[in-house]
């Protein structure tokens, strides 16, 4: 750990344990700078004179509210509009037509799991709105869930900076779906009506969210511990309707013999749920580890 960082090494180790216990997420040694910058900002926001003082209180007084804020702030991710162009193309050209033929005029429910500041759900909503223009029967709603955080609040506001809207969002989509508000850009009502957000502990049971036709959980899996990965995927599996889809990041894959999903030829990051799912036995779980080629530290370095 660098000498320029102010946090006591023992506190850093304690924060790593806290994040693992509360959220199932591993913080690596290379996340020290991220911890300093994120928690330094939180300490100022909470009225502490120093980061160490806030961590003193956190572990000395065992404040649950502060623990949730600390962990949420460490888990925030830097996200872009249209984060994975190939994935978005698969949604537009394969998944939407499939879902339309399966669901008819029934409303299609899409979940953006770990949605951060909302760029993924809004990008999906833009794609779905365009698809709806050529397929009037297509009806959809999108739910974004993540830990409570300033990022999720920003997603709910739907206001993005000049820099954020230019990363991944084509200019035609910007002027069609956003209004300029001073120096920022605000989502228009036409998108806002189809997208909602909910604060959610991502390791908790997901049943209260209902059943979904498509679940997106992209490029976050690698941050989780082995046990948490299995837990999250099992939970997600339970809220995907039979013969509907789950989509991971381009560098992530599941062993498809478990979790009641089958691969789809030509779309390696999309899986379809069995028509008659079976209960997964706990002893089988250890064989169900996801395969991830993704480098967990990349986006944390960037977002620091």
């Amino acid at each position, binding site marked *: 750990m660098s000498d320029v960082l102010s946090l006591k090494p023992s506190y850093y180790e304690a924060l790593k344990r806290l994040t693992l216990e509360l959220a199932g997420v591993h913080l690596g040694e290379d996340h020290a700078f991220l911890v300093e910058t994120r928690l330094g900002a939180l300490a100022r926001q909470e009225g502490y004179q120093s980061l160490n003082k806030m961590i003193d209180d956190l572990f000395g007084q065992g404040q649950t509210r502060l623990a949730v804020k600390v962990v949420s702030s460490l888990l925030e991710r830097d996200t*872009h509009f249209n984060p994975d*162009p190939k994935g978005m193309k698969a949604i537009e050209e394969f998944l939407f037509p499939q879902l339309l033929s399966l669901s008819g005029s029934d409303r299609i429910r899409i979940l953006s799991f770990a949605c951060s500041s909302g760029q993924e759900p809004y990008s999906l909503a833009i794609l779905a709105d365009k698809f709806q223009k050529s397929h009037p029967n297509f009806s959809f709603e999108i739910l974004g869930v993540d830990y409570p955080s300033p990022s999720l609040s920003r997603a709910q506001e739907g206001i993005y900076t*000049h*820099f954020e809207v*230019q*990363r*991944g969002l*084509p*200019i*035609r989509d*910007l*002027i069609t779906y956003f209004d*300029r508000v001073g120096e920022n850009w605000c989502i228009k009502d036409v998108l806002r009506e189809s997208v909602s957000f909910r604060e959610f502990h991502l390791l908790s049971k997901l049943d209260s969210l209902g059943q979904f036709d498509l679940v997106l959980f992209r490029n976050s899996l690698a941050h989780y511990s082995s046990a948490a990965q299995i837990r999250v995927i099992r939970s997600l599996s339970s809220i995907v309707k039979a013969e509907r889809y789950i989509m991971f990041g381009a560098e992530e894959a599941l062993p498809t013999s478990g979790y009641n999903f089958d691969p789809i030829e030509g779309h390696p990051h999309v899986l379809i749920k069995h028509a008659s799912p079976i209960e997964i036995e706990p002893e089988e779980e250890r064989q169900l580890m996801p395969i991830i080629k993704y480098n967990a530290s990349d986006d944390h370095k960037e977002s620091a």
Partner: protein
Amino acid sequence: MRTCLVVDNSKMIRRVAGRILSDLKFNTEEAENGLEALNMCRSNMPDAILLDWNMPVMDGMTFLKKLRAEQTNERPVVLFCTAERDVVKIAAALEAGADEYIMKPFDSDIISSKLLQAGLLG
């Protein structure tokens, strides 16, 4: 290697954009105004043009209209790159034949994102 022509009357902007494009493996050329850029395009059409709006001699909009009216089979990707943020002006630029639009200030993420959307990266 692809070529990008940076058209801007600010030497600093040309230098910053040139450095970003060079990191993205583009050959870069520079022009100070629309007229100089038009002459360069007539002799050797680039793959992409990063185009400022307000310039002396010939502005970006006039350049773009003239470029798109040229009798040629080559159609370079044009990215307007300007401080103009008015939606009406953005729409006018797209109507005149711009493929994408970058609002200043920009960074390397924005340039690479726009080039990716235009099919010139990745």
